[in-house]
Every structure is written in structure tokens, then in C-alpha cells.
């Protein structure tokens, strides 16, 4: 039970947090889009990213954004001459776009990874694979999130 005195001590902090949220709001979408674009450019070095070869599996409807199972597999023979060098997973609406970057080689045998991510809001999840010949391939999946990660007991 929170006493009146404790409550009054908490109020300024809550106001500061609320203020921070209000300051973030106006063009947050543009900022996130720019951050995502910058992250993709950093991964690819400006090379074109083509759709295909990559299969990203994420549940389309996520109850709890704190733990979202996802798996990425890439259609590749995984030989020394033709293999997947890296798999990157990005999200559209998180405070930072990066989720995980995995670096594989021909010794992986199969280009498939699985992990669990936090997703802050309804939006796209993007997997980008870099092949040994320097080309980039991607898959994009729209995801609906009902309980957001990041904010559950922070700002509220």
C-alpha cells in the first residue's frame, strides 16, 4: 500500500517520465523510419536488397511482445563457394531497429537460426541475409502486437 507521503514523492518523477514521452511523440514515426533505413544502409553498405530466398517465421499475432519466437532460414547450399555469411533481424517500431546479427559460414551446414525477440509495437519485422557473393536478400513480415514490450512497467 502506498502511503500519501510516498505517493507525493513519486509524483514529480512520474511527471518527468510523462514529459519525456510527450517530447518523443511528434515525429517519432519519421525518426524510427529513418533509424531503420540507416540500419539497413549500415548492413548493406548501400547495395540493393532483393526480396526472396529468406524465410522469416514470426507469429502474425503476438500476445506478449516481450518474448516473440522467430526463426530465419535462407535457401542456400552452404558450400564454401556459395553460403550465407550473415543474417540480420530488424524491427520497425522498436526504440532501436536492431534485434540480432548472426554470422555463419559454410560450416553451419544449413542457414537457419531461431531466437526470441522483444517487439514494441505493431509493425514490420525484417530479416536480411548477406550471401558470400555480396548480395543481400530479405523477407518482411507484418506483426500485430497486443501487449507491447519496453513499456509494460516503465512509463505507465
Amino acid at each position, binding site marked *: 500500500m502506498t502511503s500519501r507521503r510516498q505517493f507525493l514523492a*513519486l509524483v514529480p*518523477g512520474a511527471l518527468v517520465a510523462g514529459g519525456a514521452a510527450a517530447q518523443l511523440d511528434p515525429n517519432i514515426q519519421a525518426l524510427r523510419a529513418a533509424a531503420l533505413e540507416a540500419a539497413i544502409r549500415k548492413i548493406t553498405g548501400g547495395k540493393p536488397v532483393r526480396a526472396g530466398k529468406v524465410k522469416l517465421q514470426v507469429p502474425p499475432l503476438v500476445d506478449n511482445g516481450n518474448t516473440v519466437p522467430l526463426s530465419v532460414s535462407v535457401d542456400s547450399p552452404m558450400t564454401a563457394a556459395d553460403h550465407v555469411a550473415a543474417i540480420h533481424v530488424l524491427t520497425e517500431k522498436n526504440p532501436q531497429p536492431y534485434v540480432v546479427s548472426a*554470422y*555463419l*559460414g559454410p560450416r553451419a551446414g544449413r542457414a537457419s537460426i531461431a531466437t526470441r525477440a522483444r517487439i514494441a509495437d505493431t509493425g514490420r519485422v525484417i530479416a536480411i541475409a548477406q550471401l558470400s557473393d555480396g548480395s543481400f536478400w530479405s523477407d518482411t513480415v507484418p506483426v500485430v502486437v497486443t501487449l507491447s514490450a*519496453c513499456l509494460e512497467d516503465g512509463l505507465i
Partner: protein
Amino acid sequence: MARVVVNVPPRAKRGEVIEIRTLAGHVMETGFRRTQTGELIPRDIITQLVCTYNGVEVFRAELHPAMAANPLITFTTVAAESGTLEFKWTGDNGYAATQSAAITVV
């Protein structure tokens, strides 16, 4: 104190693709959450996992705050020869954990 678990099949045929599952017990604090009094909770995450097979690196992952708590990472490798797989996690605030698993290739 750092709790980590790896799941590697104990024996495999030569050339077979084996699936490896790794789990590290860690809160993966994002650095974006605030306390009740409005202060930011500093970031505290695992940033890297490296897997070596008899001393040769076969898998490396860079983790970011958007990884769920207790990061689970599943990947594959070719069973080339008998030996050990070494796993090394490193992270913020000097976090380091290692684990190894033996594999017999027939």
C-alpha cells in the same frame, strides 16, 4: 553464477547437420525502461555469443536490447570431427560466461 545451458547432441554421424540450442540466464535490461521515480534503468545485456568447434569459430551472434530476456539462440553446424564445442557469452558490466559440450562423431 552466470547460468547457461547448451543442448548439443552427444553423438552424430560424420557430415550430419546438428542443431545446437543455447540459453543464457540474463535479464537483458534494455536501457529504455524507467523506474517508478522516472530514472532510466541502465542497459545491461549480453552483447555477443561465440561458438567454436575444436578451436575454429563456427557461429557468432551480436545481440541487441531487442532480444528477449534469457536469450535463446538456435543454430546449426556440420558434425565434422569428434571434439568439443565451446560457447562464450560476453556482455555489459563485465558479464562473461563459458560452457562446453563434447561431441562424438562416428
